[in-house]
């Protein structure tokens, strides 16, 4: 479980996060939604330590991450897998070397064991046989799936996904969503997904947090979001004609 307590963050004189408290539960897909510039990505970066919060604490299974020394943070980070918006695969490495990278850094494995692990992870995301290709030679959807394979290579306890569906066609988006959900349940991972894709919310939103202007404005599940009595949330959720029709039907 990951727990955030009273997280504040500002850049120069602009306050981006205003005292956010939230708990992400193990084995659940936790979604952070909000309009662009609402502070979702900053909140995630504060959670994983890519940014230091000005105030507040982040607890990983009860351990205060914000107060840890570098070695302690390194230990926690070994348990974190992250899927970035653009995949963030290393351009100069093949798909296989990308997935092997965290194994080389942190695992004591032979080359054969690493190869087996790479093949297992690629198989798990339905991408077997592309080991020798470079990131530039595969599509955006394939890069996302390889990104997931890399994120799960060290069997993480925590999985972060930043806009996993951005730039993908609807069917690939659903595939990625389902993959995230399956992996979360299969390995009992604490998963946090930053998104503004309402399809994802309705597909995999076990726990949904709505961030508005740096405040936690609403919290619930995919089942309660359609009936939530919150104007800012409704403006976001029912922005499209499709969702307006869904609301009328429900």
């Amino acid at each position: 479980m990951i727990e955030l307590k009273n997280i504040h963050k500002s850049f120069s004189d602009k306050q981006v996060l205003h005292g956010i408290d939230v708990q992400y539960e193990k084995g659940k897909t936790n979604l952070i939604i909000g309009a662009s510039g609402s502070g979702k990505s900053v909140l995630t970066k504060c959670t994983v330590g890519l940014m230091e919060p000005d105030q507040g604490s982040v607890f990983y299974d009860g351990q205060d991450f914000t107060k840890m020394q570098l070695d302690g943070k390194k230990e926690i980070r070994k348990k974190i897998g992250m899927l970035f918006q653009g995949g963030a695969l290393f351009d100069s490495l093949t798909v296989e070397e990308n997935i092997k990278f965290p194994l080389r850094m942190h695992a004591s494995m032979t080359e054969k064991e690493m190869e087996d692990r790479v093949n297992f992870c690629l198989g798990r995301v339905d991408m077997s046989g592309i080991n020798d290709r470079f990131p530039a030679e595969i599509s955006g959807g394939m890069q996302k799936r390889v990104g997931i394979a890399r994120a799960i290579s060290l069997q993480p306890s925590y999985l972060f996904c930043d806009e996993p569906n951005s730039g993908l066609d609807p069917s690939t988006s659903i595939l990625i969503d389902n993959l995230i959900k399956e992996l979360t349940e299969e390995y009992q991972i604490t998963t946090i997904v930053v998104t503004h894709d309402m399809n994802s919310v309705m597909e995999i939103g076990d726990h949904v947090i709505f961030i508005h202007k740096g405040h936690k404005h609403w919290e619930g599940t995919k089942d309660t979001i359609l009936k939530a009595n919150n104007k800012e949330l409704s403006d976001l959720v029912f922005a499209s004609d499709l969702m307006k029709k869904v609301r009328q039907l429900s």
Partner: protein
Amino acid sequence: MKILHNIGEYFILMARTFSQPTKSSLIRKQILFEINSLGLGSMGIITIISAFMGAVITLQTASNIDSALIPDYTVGFTARQSMILEFSTTIIALILAGKVGSNIASEIGMMRVTEQIDALEIMGVNSASYLIVPKIIAAVFINPFLAIWSMFVGISGGYLVAEFSGVVSTDAYIEGVQLDFKMFSIYYALIKTVVFAFIITSIPAFYGYNVKGGALEVGIASTRGVVTSSIVILIANYVITQLLLI
């Protein structure tokens, strides 16, 4: 104030780069890659520029000697001293600052904007060390060889001009090249080359590492990296010369 801020940030990054080393097995492969990319990849341009520069120095020196009191071997002596003391070190460093520096700043800058550096950090890797140390080690190792190669090619270029243009006899040229040779000149040149190699790699890496934004900012960082490292090379050149030769 901005300059002081940047200098402070640069030293903080360098401290971070060298304080938490990456696994040596990973970095070894990277160093070999960078030696090939930054060093051997520059052999062509260094060869062409050095050969022509040696040839031009020879022609200019010969054409400016009017007095019969100045011996012919002065041409070879001047070509050797110019190549060893200044051209193969400082001028080559300035050329490499443009070629290698822009390459480093844009490569690391693109890794920053495409979140590859964030991915390294999330994996518990000291991204500064992993990305910058191999480049610095590779340049500090290979650049002295490039400088020596440049000296050899430049002096040879002068010899070929002497041979084919007839501005000075080859015997006089060789005599000048060998005249009053001090080994310390080579040490001085190599010390400068090592310092310049550090500047050429670390300053553009600093600008690339701190890029915020997109492709436009990567371009700006690349330009700043080249301009700043060129200025710092000139300042370092003056300081080292003052310390070692005066």
